[in-house]
């Protein structure tokens, strides 16, 4: 049962990613992005990480993809406005060079060991345990991330306000 769910999720994940990279129409790319995000949430749920699952649903699916689709909507990205993409031999060679080490690492990882999961403890990955660890052991990174988010918020507001100044 678990493996069936895993393979379905992996299928959606990879096909979504391929849709992003290879589809001509930007709306299909956005749909692919949505599929990747939802399948990611499913992966987290399969690993019993309910906190990450929720964060992915609320942040990834609920906000990030919506914003990207809003961008496509507002600047009217059509197929004919898309830049031409030539697949040159140089491109392919370069891509292969970069991906080869990752593939090697992967092969090493697969060949290594059975890697079966230990039976999961009762409260592993629930919001309660995550919260406790987050506010004791990881409190400094947490605060730094909150400052980063604040900065991003202020930055986004400033960027969107600037247009008004230019017009007036």
């Amino acid at each position, binding site marked *: 049962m678990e493996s069936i769910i895993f393979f379905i999720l992996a299928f959606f994940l990879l096909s979504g990613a391929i849709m992003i990279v290879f589809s001509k129409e930007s709306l299909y790319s956005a749909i692919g992005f949505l599929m990747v995000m939802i399948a990611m949430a499913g992966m987290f749920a399969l690993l019993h990480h309910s906190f990450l699952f929720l964060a992915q649903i609320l942040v990834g699916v609920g906000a990030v993809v919506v914003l990207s689709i809003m961008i496509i909507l507002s600047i009217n990205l059509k197929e004919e406005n898309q830049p031409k993409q030539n697949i040159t031999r140089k491109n392919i060679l370069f891509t292969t060079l970069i991906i080869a080490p990752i593939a090697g690492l992967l092969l090493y990882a697969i060949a*290594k060991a*059975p890697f079966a999961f230990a039976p999961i403890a009762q409260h592993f990955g629930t919001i309660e345990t995550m919260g406790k660890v987050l506010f004791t052991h*990881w409190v400094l990174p947490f605060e730094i991330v909150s400052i980063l988010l604040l900065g991003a918020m202020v930055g986004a507001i400033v960027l969107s306000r600037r247009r008004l100044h230019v017009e007036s």
Partner: protein
Amino acid sequence: MIELSHYLVVSGILFSIGVVGVLRRKNLLMLFFATEIMLNAANIAFAAVSSYYGDLSGQMFAFFIIAVAASEVAVGLGLLIVLYKKQGTLDLDDLAVMKG
């Protein structure tokens, strides 16, 4: 039975697709999507390893990655809109204005 290596393989393939996307696409928005795929690939690996060792640190990393990705999208898409208003295009080749 699903093991850690399955998750790692999926994560690796996803990351590779992301790299291909970054190298191949010339549309800025698609570059965003491709980087997001790469971040997500890292997230799967972190979450799976966290389960494997029974250690919460991996999940913490994944959580911070989600937060950073969200802030990246907020600022990045804002910049993208401003750029589009100014240049009228999202083609990377047209944006090489610093070229001498």
